[in-house]
């Protein structure tokens, strides 16, 4: 039962600017923590280097025109939005991130490993078919999903728990009933989409599920949504593989968002998803890093927690240092859960025509 970690020093290369929130420091303390924990020597963990995604793999998701735009802008330099510049050489780094997700998918299908976590940069879930944005260029998770399908996996469940709505991924699979896209995100918040009535269209109606949560939502809220929405849906959908867009900006110390998840909360959530995957899809599970900007107080502990959970290690001592406890207490909103219970009721109502579990 091996967990693959897809990582290479190339994942530290991409930077829009030295002080951008999505900079190489994001993974510096995580790598320190993983190395200090001796995880790369652990018999249940295998380090796998990434490779670049091929054009075919990318074009299964993105428009050729958009890919050309990225390729050309990588030479000249360019801009997608205020937060998302295209630095020189971007395309190589973006292809490596997407390729890491593809390699993870391959290794899980081939049973080289039981499950995989891709510690890639830049992230992907705001990238749509023909646009980037929100620090994202290529949609790594979507590219992995299409690759899984090309290799014979019919139905894929995407759980996007990044603090921001995965608008790019939603757009890509909006009309596709073979991919069940579930997103938990802070709302109202960037990018503005992800309300409960966005449920897909055409044949894909009912296969997009949005769980907007208020600021201050804690471990308890995420556990509640997992139990009430995600697990019943997954059990009814019976996917062949689960892909997690594992953003870590819901951590209570994240400087860009207002949620209140703990490292232990992340680890527990991943543990539940592993149990789910074991029960419905032979454990096939690919986690892909999205956001997460608390480089020192959050990411080392959340990444460790997620990997430890995937590898079946003891997560009972996964936690932040005590010095952050005050911040945690200030971040948690006691009223969030009651709001979420109300929203969940409405969401089940909206989804009930498509899912027997909500009838």
């Amino acid at each position, binding site marked *: 039962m091996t967990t693959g970690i897809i990582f290479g020093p190339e994942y530290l290369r991409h930077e829009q600017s030295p002080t951008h929130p999505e900079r190489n420091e994001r993974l510096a303390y995580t790598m320190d923590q993983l190395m200090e924990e001796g995880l790369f020597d652990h018999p249940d963990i295998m380090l796998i280097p990434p490779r670049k995604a091929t054009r075919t793999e990318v074009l299964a998701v993105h428009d050729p025109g958009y890919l050309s735009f990225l390729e050309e802008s990588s030479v000249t330099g360019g801009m997608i939005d205020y937060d998302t510049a295209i630095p020189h050489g971007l395309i190589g780094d973006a292809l490596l991130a997407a390729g890491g997700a593809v390699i993870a998918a391959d290794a899980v299908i081939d049973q080289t490993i039981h499950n995989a976590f891709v510690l890639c940069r830049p992230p992907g879930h705001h990238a749509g078919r023909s646009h980037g944005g929100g620090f994202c260029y290529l949609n790594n998770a979507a590219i992995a999903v299409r690759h899984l399908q090309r290799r014979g996996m019919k139905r894929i469940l995407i759980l996007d728990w990044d603090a921001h709505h995965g608008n790019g991924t939603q757009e890509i699979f909006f009309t596709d009933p073979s991919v069940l896209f579930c997103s938990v995100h802070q709302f109202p918040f960037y990018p503005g989409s992800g309300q409960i009535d966005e449920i897909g269209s055409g044949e894909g109606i009912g296969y997009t599920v949005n769980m907007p949560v208020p600021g201050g939502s804690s471990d308890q809220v995420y556990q509640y949504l997992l139990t009430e929405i995600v697990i019943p849906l997954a059990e009814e959908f019976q996917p062949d593989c689960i892909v997690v867009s594992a953003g870590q900006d819901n951590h209570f110390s994240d400087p860009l968002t207002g949620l209140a998840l703990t490292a232990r909360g992340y680890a527990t959530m991943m543990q539940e998803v592993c149990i789910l995957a074991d029960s419905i899809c032979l454990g096939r599970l690919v986690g892909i890093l999205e956001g997460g900007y608390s480089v020192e107080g959050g990411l080392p502990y959340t990444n460790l927690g997620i990997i430890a959970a995937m590898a079946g290690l003891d997560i009972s001592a996964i*936690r932040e240092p005590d010095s952050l406890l005050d911040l945690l207490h200030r971040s948690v909103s006691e009223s969030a859960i009651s709001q979420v219970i109300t929203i969940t009721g409405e969401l089940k109502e909206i989804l009930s025509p498509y899912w027997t579990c909500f009838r």
Partner: protein
Amino acid sequence: MFTGIDIGGTNTDIALIDSDIRTIKVSNSKGLAQALLKAGDGGRLAVSTSQPLNAMVTGSTGRVRTITIPGPGLVHGGAVKGAVGPRGDVLEPVDTRQVEGLLRGCRADAVAIVGKFSVRNPVQEEIVRDIARQFFDDEQIAISAPLGGLNFPARIATTRINAGIKATVVSLSDQIRKTHPDFLFVTSDGGLCGFDRAIDNPSLLYHSSPATVALGAGYLSKKQDCLVVDIGGTTTDLVPIRDGKPVLQTLFVQGRRTLIQAVTADTIPLGGDSCIRDVLTQVRSGNARAFGGGEPTLTDALNVLGADIGDVSRSCCLDPAKAFEAYQYYLETLGAIIHRKDPGLIVGAGFLAPYLIPDLADEARVRYYVPEHAASANAVGAAVSRISIRIHARADSGRGILTLNGVDYPLPAGISDDDLLMYAGEIVRTQARKEGAPAQDLKELLTSQYSVYNVVRGGRTQARITDFVIGIAPGITAEAP
């Protein structure tokens, strides 16, 4: 004069090298003092202590009590409250009462103290060590910060080894210093280190034997690429040499990864003292009969087949057919392993090399070379080796600190990336010079695992963090004759 001593399982080899090479073998029963006397006191002395330390590590090092300070993350045995972060800041204070509670009345022989990220700031290990000093002698206590590298479980394994062998290394060091105050130890990578460094991190000395032999065989044969076949009493070691240097790898001890870098070697449990009980076995029950032992061994077989080693008359009880069979078995077993490695050339080392290597090379279908003094290649290697250092460096411009293997140095403000390497390099050179390294050995420093990032808070760059490994590679000293 360059003098090397290798303390083996039964004998101690001595090599004295100036314009020519002299070698001496002293039985361990005569004691180390006798060997040191024969070594004389002119020039530089290097001592390889591999065998006694190996025996301790694989046998019993006594009971070692481990105290860990795991902080947030994965927990290991002997945990107490406390935490240091990746940047070396103290995140949670050590629970000193908990430490006292664990150590009071603890009947261990030694204490290993290991804190997560202690290599970035050793202060919490030092606090625990100060408490441990109330209950234990200094030479029974080891901390992990001097190991320098990240990997908490590997530091736990290595620090436990250190705690277990530290007292032996200290007493050995004290004994040798009486007559040779500036002596050096041979390390597991085949380099040399001063006794201070060895006492801080005794694991440096563990498993030095294959490295010493490889270096000696390389020096004697002048071959750059070969497989050294060292035929000992209990084992035959195969040590590849590439571009004149043995290959280093991380050592695992009893299945656990350590932070010890040791020479790559295959050890086959057959040697000159392997007993012949109908067939050649992997058992050693003492010396060969030719050297006063009770059971016939591979060495006795060589005598029966016409060699003249030790007291030949005592070997004769061995049936010639069995002797031939045992000899053939050794050649076929080793020959097949060597052939698979396809080394092109084997260089023999060890007392039996002249007797066995020609036929072994024939069996493996490779060329061979047995240099003069092959029997003492180990001691020769110790004599001609040079001081090597491997230091994990981390510069944190925010804290204004350069940490080298757990020891803090001031970091000049605004230092450039290039100047930082020069600055760290000069500290490495100073350390090596203090231990006696000549200038020619300090010309070339090796830097690896270089990485750098900026600490950005609130959109502003507040510090620059640089990590690298810097040091002097092991090898033969430029001063060797």
